[in-house]
């Protein structure tokens, strides 16, 4: 299946597939095994993988990728409203429209590099956000957000008589159907929507891996290192960066489409600059330019946002209930600022620590630990050998 990958990449791919497919089981003990969050892991994983193709390879830091995410969501919801609740046409349109948007924005923004490129993309994204919020209300439904209605045409679907809005589906397989199993006191939830996103995530990861290992990917890395030399080597850098920009924009559109699939509504806030900044954080936190980094970063941040933010003082009191009362209250009083609504503070500290001490991100940290363990293993066997002699 992965015949044209090198051995290491094949192992990475297999590892990735197992981790993703077993996600509901692996994450259940951490309280993150429910479909809604798992879907978000997968969707933001796709978003970050796409962003990494641009930022990790070429070094062009886009601050406007949320625009493509939003455009993808709107396209998908419109497809649900007009054509059918089947997810395939919706996703195709999301990717196509985001691609066209990326082509236009990229064509203009890539005339500059460095900070000017970032500012241009940010400006375009804010423009899209404001347009979606105000002028384009007939298309975007303004601040209410675009929602499904009972009397939407849906010309391909059979007339619905149930009186409720139908669920998004993959040729009849409803996205919100879930199989639940109780194992060891935990509830394992296997959700169709999650597995749909997971399969697309695996496909997106595989495609990104191919791009990373291709001549095209090598050119993109060369652009990051020395554009001047590349020009004098007979290569036109502009189409390369534009292609990377469009590809990563289409990834964002795909992620936006998937968001609409798991929850069929689209709002302008999805395009806001904070959303663009979030994917930058995910990529840098996980490790820009690495394969696993962006997915890891996306998972990390979404976990913090959804789980860490739910820890409140009562939970803390329960954790430290064995300690003497004074100490317990002191600890809870200190930690109070770092959990619950203060999760941004903790995330900020983690982000600072990573940027300062692990410039290669979480993946860099993991490889360092692995190396240290490997070296220890080696020196152990070496000393064992010398002892035997």
């Amino acid at each position, binding site marked *: 299946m992965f015949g044209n990958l090198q051995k290491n990449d094949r192992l990475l791919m297999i590892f990735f597939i197992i981790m993703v497919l077993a996600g509901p089981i692996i994450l259940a003990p951490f309280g993150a095994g429910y479909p809604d969050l798992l879907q978000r892991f997968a969707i933001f994983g796709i978003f970050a993988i796409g962003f990494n193709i641009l930022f990790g390879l070429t070094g062009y830091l886009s601050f406007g990728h949320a625009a493509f995410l939003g455009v993808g969501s709107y396209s998908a919801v419109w497809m649900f409203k007009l054509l059918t609740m089947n997810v395939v046409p919706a996703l195709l349109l999301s990717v196509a429209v985001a691609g066209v948007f990326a082509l236009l924005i990229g064509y203009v923004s890539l005339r500059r590099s460095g900070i000017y490129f970032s500012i241009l993309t940010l400006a375009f994204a804010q423009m899209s956000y404001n347009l979606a919020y105000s002028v384009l209300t007939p298309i975007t439904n303004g601040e209410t957000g675009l929602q499904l209605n009972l009397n939407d045409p849906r010309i391909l679907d059979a007339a619905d008589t149930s009186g409720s809005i139908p669920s998004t589906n993959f040729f009849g397989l409803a996205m919100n159907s879930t199989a639940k199993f109780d194992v060891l006191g935990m509830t394992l939830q296997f959700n169709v929507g999650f597995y749909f996103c997971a399969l697309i995530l695996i496909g997106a990861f595989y495609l990104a891996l191919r791009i990373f290992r291709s001549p095209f990917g090598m050119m993109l890395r*060369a652009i990051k290192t020395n554009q001047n030399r590349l020009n004098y080597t007979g*290569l036109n850098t502009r189409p390369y960066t534009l292609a990377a920009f469009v590809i990563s924009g289409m990834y964002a559109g795909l992620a936006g489409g998937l968001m609409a699939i798991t929850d069929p509504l689209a709002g302008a806030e999805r395009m806001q600059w904070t959303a663009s900044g979030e994917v930058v954080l995910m990529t840098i936190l996980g490790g820009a330019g690495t394969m696993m980094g962006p997915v890891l970063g996306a998972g990390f941040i979404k976990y913090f946002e959804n789980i860490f933010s739910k820890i409140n003082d009562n939970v803390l009191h329960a954790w430290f209930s064995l300690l003497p009362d004074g100490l317990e209250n002191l600890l809870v009083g200190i930690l109070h600022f770092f959990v619950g609504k203060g999760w941004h503070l903790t995330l900020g500290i983690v982000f600072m620590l990573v940027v300062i001490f692990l410039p290669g991100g979480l993946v860099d940290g993991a490889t360092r630990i692995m190396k240290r363990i490997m070296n220890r293993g080696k020196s152990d066997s070496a000393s064992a050998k010398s002892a035997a002699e």
Partner: protein
Amino acid sequence: MSYLEVRGVNKRFGGLQALDDVNLSVEAGTIHAIIGPNGAGKSTLLNCFVGKLIPDTGTVTFDGQSLLGLKPHEINQTGVSRVFQTPEIFSDLSVLENVMIPCLAKRDGAFKLNAITAMSGQTDIREKAEQMLLDVSMQDKMHMAASSLSRGDKRRLEMAMCLSQDPKLLLLDEPTAGMARADTNNTIDLLKEIQEKRKITKVVIEHDMHVVFSLAQKISVLAQGHVIVEDKPENIKGHPKVKEAYLGGAH
């Protein structure tokens, strides 16, 4: 007929006449040196060959084709490679990858979206790059990061990158600038070796006389934007105009 032909080139930056009616003809297969004191306009002239600057007036033709108005990558695709004053390499990539990129550019042109084919499948490119590194005796450093090379090796690598494209014309902008004597001599030997193996036309910009006289077949002396003498090296050495330009006569 000469290979690179420069006719009546003028370039003015504000009040400074950087190039003043420069004429130059480089014969095919020779090494042609352009020398001159600082600020004589050597680099400006070179930038006019590679599409970085466009002269105000005059023509630059290479192998019968005008180079004016072409972008740097288009000029490279016509067969002109350039070595920079400070080696311009892809420092984050491995030495081998550094040489594979120009090989790809030569094979696939200025842009090709081959995003799905694997780099490990490009055996022809790889073999060509490995052969090139063998030619400049860097085969044992193939998998090192280019940033970890010594300055002399970086220069060698840059040369290998240019040569791997089989250029028709190689432009060298002060290839020994800032080098220790030993490195300079190594570079001279490398250039001589290359000249013996493949007769590539070269234009060398230099202010190190030692380099110029041991390499060039013809020398143009540039002073204040003007070519004052163009002749064989042995005739340049004692030329009164050259002495005057370098030692500062009637300024």
